[in-house]
């Protein structure tokens, strides 16, 4: 029997005294620093221009005389002091961390329930032709509807507390995950199915060992998008009627013509979304370590 040995890579370069690896590493580092510097410069430019134009030409108490009116468009320094006030004093409806916690709770609950339901229905319909033929048109019709309007129904039916926001987030997440799971099941490699059957797999084992893992890359690709949708569901739900949450903060700021408040809440949302995105990516890498490049959303 022929033995296959572990692959060995020649790491030693050409013996001409020149360290190619070192040189390549240095070039890579230089580029990384350049990109970072340009990024920071861009942020300073945009924020600086914003701040400058809202201060330029102002005279008297009327902010309308400025080049850009800070009353309507906010002002970076104003946004910052709003954030500081929220952190130090708290918001109109309680401490800041409580608002973030409520919104996160709604988002995560809606996300989890929506994902689970989406996977269950997607796999069930993907595996059952009759079921998908019967339900197909209805699901398409429901998907075509702008589901955010359901938020009003949920607020009336489920009240101002967490459940109405979770319901809206679930509805938004469900369809994204559902269609991906459905497609994932439909796209399972026929040879893999045949192989598993020959090896002796029962229908349940086929689902568990072949269909689900194969659909997983599709499902995971939808998680990035659907987490964003869950956040939209929670915020819009709060916006429509709530006692706590970042969405309510935005609504309150809007009601008092506080443009800086709206921007500050947006900033908090962006930070929350980026942190959540990082967790979703970690989850994805954990679940899909078998694959060098999984299907993911297009990113820059």
């Amino acid at each position: 029997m022929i033995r296959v040995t572990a692959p060995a890579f020649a790491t030693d370069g050409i013996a001409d005294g020149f360290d190619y690896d070192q040189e390549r590493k240095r070039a890579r580092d230089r580029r990384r620093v350049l990109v970072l510097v340009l990024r920071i410069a861009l942020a300073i430019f945009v924020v600086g221009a914003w701040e400058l134009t809202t201060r330029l030409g102002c005279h008297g108490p009327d902010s309308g005389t400025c080049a850009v009116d800070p009353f309507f468009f906010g002002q970076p320094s104003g946004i910052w002091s709003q954030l500081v006030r929220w952190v130090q004093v708290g918001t109109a409806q309680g401490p800041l961390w409580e608002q973030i916690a409520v919104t996160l709770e709604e988002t995560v609950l809606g996300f989890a329930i929506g994902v689970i339901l989406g996977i269950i229905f997607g796999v069930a319909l993907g595996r059952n032709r009759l079921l998908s033929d019967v339900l197909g048109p209805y699901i398409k019709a429901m998907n075509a509807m702008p589901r955010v309007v359901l938020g009003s129904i949920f607020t009336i039916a489920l009240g101002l507390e967490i459940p109405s926001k979770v319901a809206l987030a679930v509805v938004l997440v469900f369809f994204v995950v559902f269609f991906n799971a459905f497609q994932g099941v439909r796209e399972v490699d026929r040879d893999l199915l045949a192989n598993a059957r020959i090896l002796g797999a029962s229908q349940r084992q086929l689902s568990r060992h072949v269909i689900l893992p194969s659909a997983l890359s599709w499902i995971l690709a939808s998680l990035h998008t659907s987490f964003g949708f869950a956040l939209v569901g929670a915020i819009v739900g709060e916006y429509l009627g709530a006692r706590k949450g970042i969405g309510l903060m935005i609504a309150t700021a809007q009601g008092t013509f506080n443009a800086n408040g709206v921007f500050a809440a947006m900033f908090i949302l962006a930070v929350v979304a980026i942190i959540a995105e990082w967790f979703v990516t970690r989850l994805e890498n954990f679940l899909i370590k078998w694959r060098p490049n999984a299907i993911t959303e297009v990113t820059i």
Partner: protein
Amino acid sequence: MTRTCGTTESLYVVAVCAQGVRTVTEGGAKAEAIELRGVTKRFVSPSGKSFTALRDLDLTVVPGEFTAVVGPTGCGKSTTLALISGLEAPSVGTVKVFGEPVKSVGRSVGYVFQRDAVFPWKSVLDNVAMGPRFRGVDAEKASTEARQWIGRVGLDGFERYYPHQLSGGMRKRVALAQTLINQPRILLMDEPFSALDVQTRALMENELLDLWASTGASVVFVTHDLEEAIGLADRVIVITAGPGTVKGTYKVDLPRPRNIAEIRFHPRFVELYEEIWNDLRDEVLVSYERSKQRVAS
């Protein structure tokens, strides 16, 4: 048995020979390993057109025999394997494995696919252990068994690797171990090495012969490469351009054990090659003409 039927019979004589085999085995203790009788297989395409892949095919494989099936592209070779394995049912005719009509996927069959059919989300060890796990063996025992087979196909030390980390040849080894761990009495192989480079291929063919010799399974090896067919098999069956039916059966009386890389210099190999190629050439031409027409239309 079939080997007494000589090498250059016409289609009619082959059928008579097969008939003879049946009477012999019915009188004897064991049935043929595989028996296809008057098998026709039609497929209906999604557009509703019916397509005949196999027509009136008779094929018999005795236990322990290595049979190679050659034929031009699209002659229904893969369909034949799908019928034997029970993945597909014949439209007309009977398919029997060890005397039993095939109704569903049987436990005695192993199948190595042309494309990679190892599970990309499972490590080498889990891939190989899949067969016993599916068949109800507990995890620990399955894993011990899998390690043995991984060693037998020469992949010691790669248990924790995922398929995408392996080369094409190594993935084929995983596929072989995955199939052989179930100890199939019938091993179906659908152009398993066609995607490999020439050197790796010769290596794998030799290993396949070694492994086969130790299992005693009946093999049906589908290929379009005549050299590979003669090198490996006890018997070569030529299938006509689709719809496929048996055109000729040839006994390969080359000595065993064989070395694939060297057997092709054997004078008898060259003789057989010429003889079978004469038969195969016409079918290849027919198939080529058809594909040209299909492109033109």
